[in-house]
């Protein structure tokens, strides 16, 4: 006869189990691993495990000259590559006290905003996919393709451009640039209605996101959640407004703040931001002043010894570049305060007590890009 094993009696209702979401999971948008403790379908807590795509960009920067760093920052948050490059360029220009031509500032601002729209389009379509609406994905990519075409025409590549250089730009914009940007704005103003029709107004989506994953303003500040996600909680953190760079001080745009701090507000923030970005581009595109596309720079850029910090508003939040120079042509220490890194740290706090499906929605609304977290 078989021996009867007395297992310890557990209350099944309270029993927790763990599942690994990722590193290969459709909704982690890359190689992020979330160890989720579940009780039934309710998330009790989760632990993010990063580092699957850690390339040591900060260490590599210590070996590279300042123009060479640009091609590394491209690859941090690859969806806002221009904006990352902008941060490094501004830092070098600030350290050397170089005055870049107005034309460069205008072009950089316009390209940054185009990049932001492209990034938010990809966010929108992948958010739709996280929610289970697969058609959204193709509509988002369809419209993003137009921006990538503009980029390809002017800068030669679609995703990782390395277009900015310390002191200016790699090359001047293509003669067609202004026309194609204006065409795109006209096109996208028409197509963004599809986005609202198919996802924003949808009752299923609204019911799934309203009141889910609430992050209070205090928590948002404490966790350093910035960008659209932080602004959804009411945290006025738009670097473009508070520490303007480029020609953002000349453009008229709103910093839209939410109050709820839930998934739906984060969604709406990005939808509004796309429209605000279009507004900025429309104001600037016709006023690009003539001039040189780069300031005169020395062949070998050496930063004076000291510490520099530059903040820019990347499409997912505040990107900070902290550089310590010892006067050489390579930085002594380069630190990137990446927006996704801080945003991810709040995921555990936000997703306690929600269902797995909500966890996916919250993750989608935070819009994390894993290479930016791991660097």
């Amino acid at each position: 006869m078989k021996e009867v094993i007395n297992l310890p009696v557990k209350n099944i209702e309270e029993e927790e189990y763990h599942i690994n979401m990722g590193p290969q999971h459709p909704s982690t948008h890359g190689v992020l691993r979330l160890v989720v403790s579940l009780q039934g379908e309710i998330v009790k807590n989760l632990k993010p495990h990063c580092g699957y795509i850690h390339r040591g960009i900060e260490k590599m920067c210590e070996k590279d000259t300042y123009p060479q760093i640009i091609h590394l920052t491209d690859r941090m948050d690859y969806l806002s590559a221009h904006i990352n490059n902008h941060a490094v360029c501004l830092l070098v220009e600030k350290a050397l006290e170089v005055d870049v031509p107005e034309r460069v500032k205008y072009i950089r601002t316009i390209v940054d905003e185009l990049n932001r729209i492209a990034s938010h389009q990809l966010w929108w379509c992948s958010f739709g996919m996280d929610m289970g609406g697969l058609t959204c994905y193709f509509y988002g990519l369809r419209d993003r393709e137009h921006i990538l075409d503009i980029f390809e025409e002017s800068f030669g590549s679609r995703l990782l451009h390395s277009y900015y250089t310390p002191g200016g730009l790699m090359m001047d914009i293509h003669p067609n640039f202004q026309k194609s940007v204006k065409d795109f704005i006209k096109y996208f103003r028409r197509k963004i209605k599809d986005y609202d029709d198919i996802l924003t107004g949808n009752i299923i989506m609204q019911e799934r996101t309203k009141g889910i994953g609430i992050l209070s303003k205090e928590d948002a500040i404490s966790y350093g959640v910035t960008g659209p996600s932080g602004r959804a909680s009411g945290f006025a953190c738009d670097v473009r407004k508070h520490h303007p760079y480029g020609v953002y001080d000349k453009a008229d745009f709103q910093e839209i703040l939410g109050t709820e701090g839930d998934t739906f507000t984060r969604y709406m923030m990005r939808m509004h931001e796309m429209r605000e970005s279009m507004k900025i581009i429309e104001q600037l595109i016709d006023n690009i002043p003539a001039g040189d596309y780069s300031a005169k720079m020395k062949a070998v850029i050496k930063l004076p010894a000291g510490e520099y910090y530059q903040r820019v508003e990347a499409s997912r939040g505040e990107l900070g570049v902290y550089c310590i120079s010892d006067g050489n042509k390579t930085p002594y220490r380069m630190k990137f305060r990446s927006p996704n890194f801080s945003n991810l740290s709040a995921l555990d706090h936000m997703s306690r007590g929600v269902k797995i499906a909500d966890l996916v929605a919250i993750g989608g609304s935070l819009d994390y890009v894993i290479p930016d977290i791991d660097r």
Partner: protein
Amino acid sequence: MNFSIYDFTSFNQWIDQFLRAHMPGFWAVAIEMTIIGLAILLFYALVGLFLVYAERKVCAFMQNRVGPNRVGPYGFFQTIADFVKLMLKELIHIKNADQLLFNLAPFIIIIASFMAIAAIPFAKGLHAIDFDIGILYVIAVSSLGVVGILLAGWSSNNKYSLIGAMRSGAQIISYELSVGLSLVTIVILAGTMQFSQIVEGQANGWFIFKGHIPAFIAFIIFLISSTAETNRGPFDLAEAESELTAGFHTEYSGIKFAFFFLAEYMNMFIVASIAATVFLGGWMPFHMGGWAGFNHIMDFIPPFVWYIGKTFFVIWIMMWFKWTFPRLRIDQLLTLEWKYLLPINLVNILIMAFVVLMGWHF
């Protein structure tokens, strides 16, 4: 009215008499059953393959894409190529999985959908078996599929599969009610549960027109709840790709996965046929009262074409749902059923009973 040109009854009787004249009755029945079985199997495979192709094309057009267009003309043989690929793929052996149940589950699902197809009338006289409780039989058999899903989820020894299976269980138990009750609404109007008589009853107008408002509401509810019952569209929680990777069939590969895949499409075909038969007149042509010439032209379109056309129309609507809406969450799914569909359905039955009682239908 006269459908004799496309009537299969005499043809069937002729085969039956021919066989019985040449052999004992037992053998005749056995041969008939084999023929019917093979015919349904062939039909099943063809429809399954076509539906996979159709879904890809439909979703591609909705998403501004072209869809499959490499294998054969307009990519028509794409699904056959896929099926060959799936047959040749390795069957992954799962450690610590319950092997018996794990291997059994795909068959349960496919047998359940196979059994349901037997009762569906494709044309006059063209059905495997005409139960006098046809609707009840189909509801009962089609809900057997959930057993397969539960077994698949349980035996895979995978938490994603288990969550998917449990979701599916809750979902199908709830939505079974709505499917049944919305059909009951029409049964009240038709006064029978036999499919052949339901179709005959729609000779002078489909039930969705005859029963006007309550029948229309029942049709909508049937569409929603049958979409849910086939684990499709916005109700695909059991295999929620972005949450559970592939839900209950995460661990399946090769031909076993193909079984799940095929069964999903066949279930869709079955519920669409039921919707077409019960609400849209099945193989009955479209007739307008008083327009004799028009009705005569309609009669010349074969009933099988009518039936397939209506079924694919319903399938197209279900695909339209799937490729438009985001997925529901499990609590929303249950809220929709218990707070909205079920009460509306019950009231709707009362209204229908009242309408029939007062003779307010057409």
